[in-house]
């Protein structure tokens, strides 16, 4: 076994280690440790991705001295390594972009605790991506939930704590259902390892032994993860949680945490239940309908909103709806579109949050649209970032959002039964997106006589650099879509 095969394990352990050590470090040391560990993991994932591209083989890594059904196991294919790389990049950019705001919004002696939360969050995301064991996934889902709650309420005002309570209630309900699903699945298959469960499930399915428990299990797993990732009827906590927490948290939560659960769901669909079995159950239609509803309702709520951060938060409800719609279409191509949208949305949403914070900074700290007039001129780089993000969300060519919408439309056409509703809702949702995003862009570029403070690029070099990286990433995803789609396709094939 090559030494590179250790890299998934190293990346999980490094972030865990830095999370543990940070508790005794000071603010600066914790910050540097966090930064260095993310960079190291980024580098490890990049090497790993390159290596897997070269060999074309899945890395199966046993955690301990005992082989898989007895011990734990992690598993890295193309998709896993690439997602780890991507998540690290987004995490890095979100942290650097919101660093200045963090200083003002969080009590200084609690900064190192914030970095612990971020480290453990990254560890849990990596573990969710790499794990090949359903119960390990549950444990890390819980770590992810608790650290997400910590990220929400680290900036302590009434709103965030109330949002954290709502978030916790919803997501504990979700993890309860998830655990129940795992228990039932364990009962009918006798395994916790994903590969073995899938073999057992396919034999159960063809023999027709436990049809009812199998269906209920699929419902429980899907429902639990949908609740945790804020699919439409379960999205009530989103606006407050994303809208009022400190900006790095908002970016990380909206672009990574909910995506982590969706990745887990996709892994469950492919590696636990089996794609054919999942498609044959009618749960997929329910997922499709809720995805469609989310696309419309999220955008409607966003239109009503008068507060820029809350508007972005509601927009992410709509985007989660897109992803579930893709899963609900139930074809391989639609799944590729969904995963592409996960990437594109994660890149765009964190960018919007980071851009919005620059705009509110030059508008006396107010997030209301009325105050934001002309802020694009006062803080140029933030204005450009926000505009690029909005254009990408609306689906203008050149940016990443366009490609994901295109992929969704193509996938919808391939599915004759669900084509019509999918296309109609896609069109409506795009128009709604355009309405509220363009309104914002027009507003921030409306000249105004009022003199506000201006911030130039030289004053905030790190922030400007982050923004440029975000824009570059977005255009990269938009321009090099074909290799990315090929990579996702190859990754999905490796799931099998």
């Amino acid at each position: 076994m090559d030494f590179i095969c250790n890299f998934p394990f190293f990346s999980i352990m490094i972030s865990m280690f830095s999370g543990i050590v940070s508790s005794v470090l000071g603010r600066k040391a914790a910050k540097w440790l966090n930064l260095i560990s993310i960079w190291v993991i980024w580098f490890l994932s990049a090497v790993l991705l390159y290596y897997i591209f070269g060999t074309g083989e899945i890395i199966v890594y046993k955690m301990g001295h005992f082989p898989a059904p007895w011990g734990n196991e992690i598993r890295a294919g193309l998709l896993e390594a690439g997602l780890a790389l991507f998540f690290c990049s987004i995490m890095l950019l979100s942290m650097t972009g919101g660093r200045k705001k963090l200083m003002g919004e969080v009590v200084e002696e609690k900064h190192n605790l914030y970095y612990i939360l971020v480290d453990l969050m990254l560890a849990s995301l990596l573990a969710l991506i790499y794990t090949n064991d359903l119960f390990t996934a549950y444990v890390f889902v819980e770590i992810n939930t608790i650290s997400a709650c910590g990220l929400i309420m680290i900036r302590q005002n009434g709103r965030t704590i109330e949002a954290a309570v709502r978030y916790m209630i919803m997501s504990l309900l979700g993890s309860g259902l998830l655990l129940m699903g795992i228990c039932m699945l364990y009962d009918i298959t006798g395994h916790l390892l994903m590969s073995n469960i899938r073999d057992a499930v396919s034999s159960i399915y063809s023999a027709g032994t436990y049809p009812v428990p199998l269906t209920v299990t699929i419902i429980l797993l899907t429902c639990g993860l949908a609740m945790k990732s804020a699919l439409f009827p379960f999205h009530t906590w989103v606006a407050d949680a994303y809208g009022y927490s400190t900006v790095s948290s908002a970016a990380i939560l909206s672009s990574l945490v909910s995506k982590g659960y969706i990745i887990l769901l996709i892994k469950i669909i492919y590696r636990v239940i089996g794609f054919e079995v999942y498609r044959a159950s009618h749960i997929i239609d329910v997922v499709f309908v809720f995805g469609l509803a989310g696309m419309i309702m999220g955008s409607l709520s966003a239109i009503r909103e008068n507060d820029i951060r809350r508007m972005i938060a509601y927009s992410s409800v709509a985007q989660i709806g897109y992803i579930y719609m893709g899963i609900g279409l139930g074809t391989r191509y639609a799944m590729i579109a969904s995963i592409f949208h996960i990437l594109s949305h994660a890149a765009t949403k964190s960018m919007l949050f980071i851009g919005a914070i620059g705009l509110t900074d030059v508008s006396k700290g107010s997030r209301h649209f009325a105050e934001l007039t002309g802020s694009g001129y006062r803080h140029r780089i933030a204005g450009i970032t926000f505009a690029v993000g909005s254009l990408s969300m609306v689906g203008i060519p050149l940016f990443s959002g366009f490609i994901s919408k295109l992929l969704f439309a193509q996938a919808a056409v391939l599915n004759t039964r669900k084509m019509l509703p999918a296309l109609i809702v896609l069109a409506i949702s795009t128009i709604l997106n355009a309405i509220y995003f363009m309104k914002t862009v027009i507003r921030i570029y409306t000249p105004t006589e009022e003199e506000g403070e201006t911030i130039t690029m030289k004053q905030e070099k790190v922030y400007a650099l982050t923004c440029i990286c975000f824009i570059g990433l977005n255009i990269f995803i938009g321009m090099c879509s074909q290799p990315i789609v090929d990579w996702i396709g190859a990754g999905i094939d490796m799931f099998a």
Partner: protein
Amino acid sequence: MKKLTNKLLDWLNAEDQSVFDDAMELKMQEPKEEKEETVQQRMRDRLHIKDEVYSEGESKEVKVLRIIYRILAIILCGFIAYNLLIAVSWLPRTGEFDKPVNNEVSARYIEKGLQETGAVNIVTGMILDYRAFDTFGESNVLNIATITVLILLRRNKKKLPNEIEEKENDRLLEPKNDVILQKAATFLVPAIFLFGIYVILNGHLSPGGGFSGGAIIGAGLILYVSAFGFEKTEKFFTEKTQKVISLSALLFYCLAKSYSFFTGANELESHIPLGKAGAILSSGLILPLNICVGLVVAVTMYTFYCMFRKGEF
């Protein structure tokens, strides 16, 4: 039509929205020259209006809606219960040997667990050796829960203690010199500590282990602090103690398990002797790991208690 255009304009101008909220308009008025009194009157009115709007009120609609919500909630729960019961009725029969759960996985744990892990208690051997990654995640759950509780409830040290906080200060309220409690605690606390240490050290030999033993020790600490007050505990348990203990325990756990994962995956030989089964010093890493877990759990329990009670150690 004109109304609609006005509304659209309002929305574009981001006026306080009366468009979609069917609530009343709460627009700021143009700054006119006003007397102080009228301004105050208006502010009072606005507050009052908000109270009216958001107060629950005894209106019939709200009540009816609430009843409907309750009925729907109960129906939903009943529906879920019914479906889950159907699922349960199709599951394999409980208590019988011949079902999917009892397969080669559990068979190996039972048949070879003693030789492979050195632990007489098969469950301990399973969670700390076979499936150690899960348990490592679990200790991190405890760690991160402590951190979130610290974020929420730890007092700011730099803030000067003002009078209100002094009044709230727990130390004034806590019962002092409660003879019955103190006498009972003098007997009980050492016994509880001993029992907890016994449970931790024998985790691989008998029922128990780090989690249960740690919880017992944590309970002992809480009893001690309830009887004798924080002045006594401050002498040996401060914030620093908490940090050092959880850091060293988790760090040891992390490094030891990393070593064992690394050697296991790369087919290297791990130089950890398993020892003679049944002895206290046996079963390789399980005993030290149990001690680590026990320390983390005990410290976490005590930290929770202190934070809930007064926000500092």
